[in-house]
């Protein structure tokens, strides 16, 4: 890249003073570094037009007087989770979440303390068995099952990992057969423990929610139905135990989502006639602080921009979905989460729309331009 031209482009857009190159030089150095370390890795950027170019386009949608506030937000509030950071969260999942839980399980079985599991061979063997009898299920592309497998090669078997929820009868039987043939297992062995893994939750609604008409929806409902139906259709060869433990793990979760998930799970357990597991836990690799969402007065300038440059089209596009979350507009993002977060493979719709929304600007509205393109669940770029 021609640094001089790129610097000129941004200096022009931002109105950095020509007679004082210090500001432009300092900011450009920061932008270059952060682009290299993080932002250029965003999955929807393409050769020739990566972060710096996207930033210039994004800033140009604002009136010149508003650009400093928008830039300041990017520099001081944006939380971008890079591939390296996500990898870190994937790699710590088994040692920091699964292992302590299994130690507690084994301790309970053997009547010892969790920290005594490796004291003698019976505990160590029981731990190995327990780990093999744990099934890991990916809930979306963001589950990063490929990374999870690589990070735990030699520790967990590929035959205890299901990348997506679309499991057919043949796959269930295959999982069962492999488990029962594994070292130290019996011919009737089943998985006692299931981890549902997803990348991110901001409001918890995608995972579990109850509509205004009382109907339960979300990924957990789907999984519960899948288990219920598969138990009937697969019969004796079904690999998941009757009273399995369910663990819901997100690599990243907001404080709001965690609390919502816990509440909804409690209600669902009481209301669902065919609740398929015995008990459940909710864990996360990174719990976003409850101070992360944009709020006045400290984020007043950016929130004002969100009002001024808002195009209601982004609400009407997903109106049914938004109304289920009790919203009448999308100025703060889905479920009014007001997050400043970008994941390297996509931008959550819970983030403030100024970051991701793209509209044509019909009906006199301002056209919105994204800093980071977002692909919705149906595959459309928004």
């Amino acid at each position, binding site marked *: 890249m021609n640094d001089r031209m790129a610097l000129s482009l941004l200096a022009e857009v931002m109105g950095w003073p020509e007679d004082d190159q210090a500001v432009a030089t300092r900011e450009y150095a*920061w932008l270059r570094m952060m682009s290299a370390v993080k932002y250029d890795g965003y999955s929807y950027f393409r050769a020739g037009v990566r972060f710096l170019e996207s930033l210039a386009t994004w800033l140009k949608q604002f009136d010149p007087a508003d650009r400093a506030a928008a830039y300041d937000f990017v520099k001081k509030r944006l939380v971008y989770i890079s591939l390296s*950071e996500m990898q*870190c969260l994937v790699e710590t999942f088994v040692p920091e979440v699964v292992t302590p839980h299994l130690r507690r399980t084994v301790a309970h079985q053997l009547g010892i*303390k969790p*920290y005594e599991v*490796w004291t003698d*061979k019976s505990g160590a*063997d029981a*731990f190995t068995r327990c780990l093999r009898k744990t099934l890991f299920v990916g809930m979306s592309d963001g589950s990063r099952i490929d990374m999870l497998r690589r990070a735990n090669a030699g520790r967990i078997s590929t035959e205890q990992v299901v990348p997506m929820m679309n499991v057919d009868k043949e796959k269930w039987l295959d999982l069962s057969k492999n488990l029962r043939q594994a070292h130290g297992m019996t011919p009737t062995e089943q998985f006692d423990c299931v981890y549902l893994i997803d990348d991110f939750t901001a409001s918890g609604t995608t995972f579990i929610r109850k509509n205004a008409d009382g109907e339960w929806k979300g990924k957990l409902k789907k999984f519960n139905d899948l288990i219920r139906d598969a138990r009937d259709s697969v019969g004796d060869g079904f690999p998941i135990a009757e009273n399995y433990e369910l663990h819901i793990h997100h690599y990243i979760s907001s404080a709001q989502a965690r609390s919502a998930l816990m509440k909804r799970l409690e209600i669902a357990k009481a209301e669902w006639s065919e609740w398929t597991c015995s008990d459940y836990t909710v864990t996360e690799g990174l719990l976003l602080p409850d101070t992360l969402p944009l709020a006045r007065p400290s984020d007043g300038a950016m929130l004002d921009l969100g009002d001024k440059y808002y195009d209601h089209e982004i609400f009407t596009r997903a109106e049914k979905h938004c109304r289920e979350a009790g919203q009448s507009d999308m100025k703060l993002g889905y479920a009014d989460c007001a997050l400043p977060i970008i994941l390297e493979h996509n931008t959550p719709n819970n983030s403030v729309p100024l970051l991701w929304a793209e509209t044509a600007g019909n009906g006199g509205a301002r056209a919105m331009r994204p800093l980071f393109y977002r692909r919705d669940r149906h595959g459309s770029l928004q």
Partner: protein
Amino acid sequence: MRRHWENCVTHFDDGVDQFIDDFFSESSRCCVLVAGAGFDPRAQRIARKLSATMGDRVHGLFIREDRGDPAVALQKLADENEAQLRSVIADTTVAHVQIFSADDRAPIGGHGVRSAVDGYKWPDDITDVVLDMSALSTGVGFPLAKLLLEFAEARPKVSLHLMVVSNPELDDRIVGEPSAQVQFVRGYSGPSGSYDELPVARIWLPQLGKGRVETLRRIRSTLDSVYKVCPVVPFPARNPRRADELLAEYQAQLLNEWEVDARDLIYVSERNPLDCYRTISTLKKRYDRTVEDVFFPQIILSPFGSKVIAVGAMMAAIEHDLSVQYVETLRYEYDPVNPTGTPPLPDMAVHVWLHGPVYGSYDAGTQKVAS
């Protein structure tokens, strides 16, 4: 080889208190707490908890780091902390460790640590040693950890526990004035005598800490034959922007001076030291293989900033005989009143069970895939 270090028994936050309640309440346990007795406000938490659980079954060996010319306010805070620790644990020994020699101001803290440990009368019925790193500097805490590990490993029934009460936001407010001398931490100079046959190729792992730019620049200026620089930054962290803020602070060094490849940043948890330990261990293994027969590999750690991450780096340094290069602190400045006025975030706590009979059968099956 300490294979269990990859997967040590750990507890966090309230879990540390629960563990102390559960484990140390057994009447057969006799514990020596080794900790700092300086100005750091986190100096008392573990002592108070152990004392409340164990009564007179816990003994204290507290290190008072004397730097010669401390700020008066901090001296007062340290005196108060020491008095509190003496009242909390009845059988307390306070060892004053001179950090700089009176003659030439050379850092000598590591020597003092050895004397303090050797001179301490260990209880005959000791079952556990707890090293609380919360209020110990690198130049004192690292040598202590190594000495106490040797002590515990020579006694099969003695467990060694590492505990850290950390608060990254509070760490940012403690400002240290660096001394002029770059040196190895005592006991962490790495392998010696092997440089003759092959030229050395170094990977430097500076742990980026707020306000430490000049210190790390000074260390870098002493290193030659550097193959790569891989800065260590905290992620996951309770402030998810902490790594970004550190990158911004070190922008000039990363881009211009140290020529860091953006892909060589190392992200490690600021909550769990084992993450840092595992990451550096993997790097060590792979780097050794890479340069084998061509260069003599040397990994140099320079831990600043998060104490939890530093503890993970220390474990890697002990296990793989890595070098730790640092600059001792002449004096600290710390204002207990938070200038931002924002409510303080709670301390985080971690317990790492480093060594003990609990790992007797670790190698029996934990790493096998039952397939």
